[in-house]
């Protein structure tokens, strides 16, 4: 099998090309850092198997961020067909990476993308002259490119790097190093040099960088003609968009209007149509068949309650999920996210984060697991850990159906404000925790924000459609795998007694027995209900399951019926106004789902995974307790609780600071 690496600077169209060559539908967007891990797809072409690998963007082999390390490792293995995708509009910077690959003895095919935009802005390129240096460079359109023999044909001749000889001679002779050692050191590899050798190479590196650029300028002077006023990424609209007030007000308006349209205006209407269609096409025919041909009540109840009811409850939120991703894709494709990162950078730095956290948090609105993975994009370790453990406080799409359903059932017309309030509470808690972490155990070693601006682009409806499809398929897959599987297990546990006999009465079930034992813990926050506890416990696996459990517990077949039962005191799961608010806050803030925890463990380590799990449970409990106390016992008792809890938190922070100086978590004092 042949391995084909798609290499290049960020946002040059690698994933777009990967999707076209491999008939895939991976996530693409108009900002840097969309791809943070290598993605593989095997394609058969002319009777040979090709393993295409889409790599995260990389500016240089001297890595600066964690996702660049992923690319570097793959590139230096050196057993692949290398396709270097370069943006015609920033060819000078893109060729820098090409020269580094040549220095390392790698061959590659240079594919120049985004050529139309380049020509449209008064620039021109003589490909023949460029090929005198880069062998088989080719102009492509990543959106239309097909898999051809030509694109996979890589010249065996290594591109010459004559500027390097002087440096090599000097260092090889002076330190008796091999050429390979020096080359590796020039390109960010630790090759066991002494401190003196390392310092000398560091001192020479700026000269090497300059020599590389001088060589690139020499090449480009023969084959490229630039419009002198052309700046890639800059737009006239930026004058307006980069105004902090306009951006801030615009973003809030976009946010509130999106939520209203998604969850209160368009979403519910489309949901009803979807539920009707699912019942008409799938569920009713199967249930009619079962009623007519199967006499076993248990089996009929199993399919009705355990399989179909929980499935339709979660599936009915598919339109909302699609709309949410449509809005996110519009933000990503337009190029606005980088502008937001820039404008909000100063504001976020107050909370120990930087501007890049904007798009990680926006991704969190869709899926916390994906955004925890995107924290790899951060340039500094403490910042990466902080972003990954703060991100689960942002309400993901799986939690929104719970908010909408419970808030609509209990608060009617005011539910919109409840849902928006929950979003803002999640963001506020994340920011406050960010400040505390930044002041104690996760101090930033600031390198500032270094981010390239992509150009503003018109929205491609086709691309928005493909991103909706990608996420909708993912959502439906989750519903038909983990949600269905766990739903069935929970239904069985909630309809089985200890003697393994079937029961209609859920209060006699195994599940109810165990959940009932935990009720006393949750009584102070108004959630001393075994059904609610079952839902919260199972919600740690996946948040969508909470609604499944509600449906199974209350024995209803639709979201509208479920909403009615939530206010009825005769239902197994029911809420008062105070307990509903307490539940919503707890569901917002408590443990991230299991897949997010797995990603936090991978990105930040085992300690931070446990920290994330326990701190979220504690914070969720404390805030629910304060709010529930205020609603049921009055303001003064709640205030007394806040004072008592603040004292305890201050004591913990004080102790954390003490511990920090005994055991190093990365602070400069401990390193000394």
């Amino acid at each position, binding site marked *: 099998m042949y391995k084909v690496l798609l290499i290049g600077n960020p946002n040059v169209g690698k994933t777009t090309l990967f999707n076209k060559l491999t008939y895939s539908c991976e996530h693409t967007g108009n900002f840097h850092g969309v791809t943070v891990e290598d993605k593989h797809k095997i394609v058969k072409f002319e009777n040979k198997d090709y393993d295409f690998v889409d790599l995260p963007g990389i500016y240089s082999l001297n890595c600066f961020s964690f996702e660049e390390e992923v690319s570097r490792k793959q590139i230096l293995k050196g057993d692949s067909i290398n396709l270097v995708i370069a943006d015609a509009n920033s060819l*000078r910077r893109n060729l*820098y990476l090409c020269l580094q690959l040549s220095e390392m003895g790698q061959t590659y095919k240079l594919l120049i993308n985004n050529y139309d935009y380049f020509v449209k802005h008064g620039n021109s390129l003589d490909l023949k002259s460029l090929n005198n240096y880069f062998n088989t460079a080719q102009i492509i359109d990543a959106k239309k490119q097909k898999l051809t023999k030509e694109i996979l044909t890589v010249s065996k001749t290594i591109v010459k790097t004559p500027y390097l000889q002087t440096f090599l001679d000097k260092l090889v002779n002076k330190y008796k190093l091999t050429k390979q050692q020096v080359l590796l050191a020039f390109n960010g590899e630790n090759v066991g040099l002494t401190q003196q050798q390392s310092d000398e190479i560091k001192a020479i590196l700026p000269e090497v960088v300059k020599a590389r650029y001088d060589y690139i300028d020499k090449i480009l002077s023969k084959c490229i003609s630039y419009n002198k006023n052309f700046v890639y990424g800059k737009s006239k609209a930026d004058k307006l968009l980069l105004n902090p007030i306009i951006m801030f007000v615009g973003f809030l308006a976009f946010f509130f209007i999106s939520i209203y349209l998604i969850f209160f205006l368009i979403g519910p209407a489309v949901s009803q149509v979807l539920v009707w269609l699912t019942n008409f096409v799938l569920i009713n025919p199967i249930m009619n068949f079962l009623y007519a041909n199967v006499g076993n009540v248990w089996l009929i109840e199993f399919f009705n309650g355990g399989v179909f009811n929980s499935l339709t409850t979660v599936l009915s939120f598919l339109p909302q999920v699609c709309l949410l991703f449509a809005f996110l894709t519009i933000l990503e494709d337009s190029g606005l996210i980088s502008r937001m990162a820039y404008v909000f950078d100063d504001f976020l730095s107050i909370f120990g984060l930087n501007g890049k956290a904007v798009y990680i948090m926006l991704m969190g609105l869709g899926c916390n697991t994906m955004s925890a993975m995107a924290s790899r994009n951060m340039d500094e370790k403490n910042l990466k850990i902080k972003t990954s453990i703060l991100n689960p406080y942002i309400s993901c799409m799986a939690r929104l159906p719970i908010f909408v359903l419970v808030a609509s059932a209990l608060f009617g017309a005011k539910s919109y404000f409840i849902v928006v309030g929950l979003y803002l509470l999640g963001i506020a808690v994340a920011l406050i925790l960010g400040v505390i972490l930044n002041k104690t155990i996760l101090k930033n070693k600031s*390198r500032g924000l270094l981010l390239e601006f992509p150009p503003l682009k018109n929205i491609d409806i086709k691309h928005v459609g493909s991103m909706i499809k990608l996420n909708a398929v993912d959502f439906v897959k989750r519903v038909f795998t983990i949600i269905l599987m766990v739903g069935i297990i929970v239904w069985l546990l909630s309809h089985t007694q200890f003697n393994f006999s079937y029961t209609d009465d859920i209060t006699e079930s195994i599940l109810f027995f165990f959940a009932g034992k935990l009720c006393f813990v949750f009584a102070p926050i108004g959630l001393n209900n075994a059904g609610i506890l079952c839902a919260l416990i199972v919600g740690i696996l996946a948040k969508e399951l909470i609604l499944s459990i509600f449906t199974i517990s209350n024995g209803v077949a639709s979201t509208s019926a479920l909403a009615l039962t939530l206010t009825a005191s005769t239902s197994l799961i029911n809420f008062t106004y105070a307990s509903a608010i307490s539940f919503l806050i707890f569901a917002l803030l408590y443990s991230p789902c299991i897949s997010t925890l797995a990603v936090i463990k991978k990105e930040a380590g085992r300690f931070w995974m446990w920290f994330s799990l326990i701190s979220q449970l504690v914070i969720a409990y404390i805030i629910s307790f304060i709010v529930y106390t205020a609603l049921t016992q009055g303001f003064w008792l709640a205030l007394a609780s806040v004072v008592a809890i603040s004292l305890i938190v201050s004591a913990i922070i004080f102790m954390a600071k003490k511990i920090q100086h005994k055991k190093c978590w990365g602070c400069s004092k401990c390193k000394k």
Partner: protein
Amino acid sequence: MPLTDVKLNTNCIITEINIKDDKIKLRLMELGMLVGSKLKVTNKSMLKQTLLVIFNSSCFTLKADTAKNILINYV
């Protein structure tokens, strides 16, 4: 006088780069911010610490943070 890490002349040409953090200094150079190249500050963000600059025909954001890691000064 503030500690100045990147100096520009009146034509916005970089005359000196003295950034202390070696890694960010190297990265900026690799992106094309070299002595002799033209750099233009076009915008400042909310609290005026994050700058929008143009070099190597592209737009970048840079932080003039409290540690004065990158403080671009017009001479």
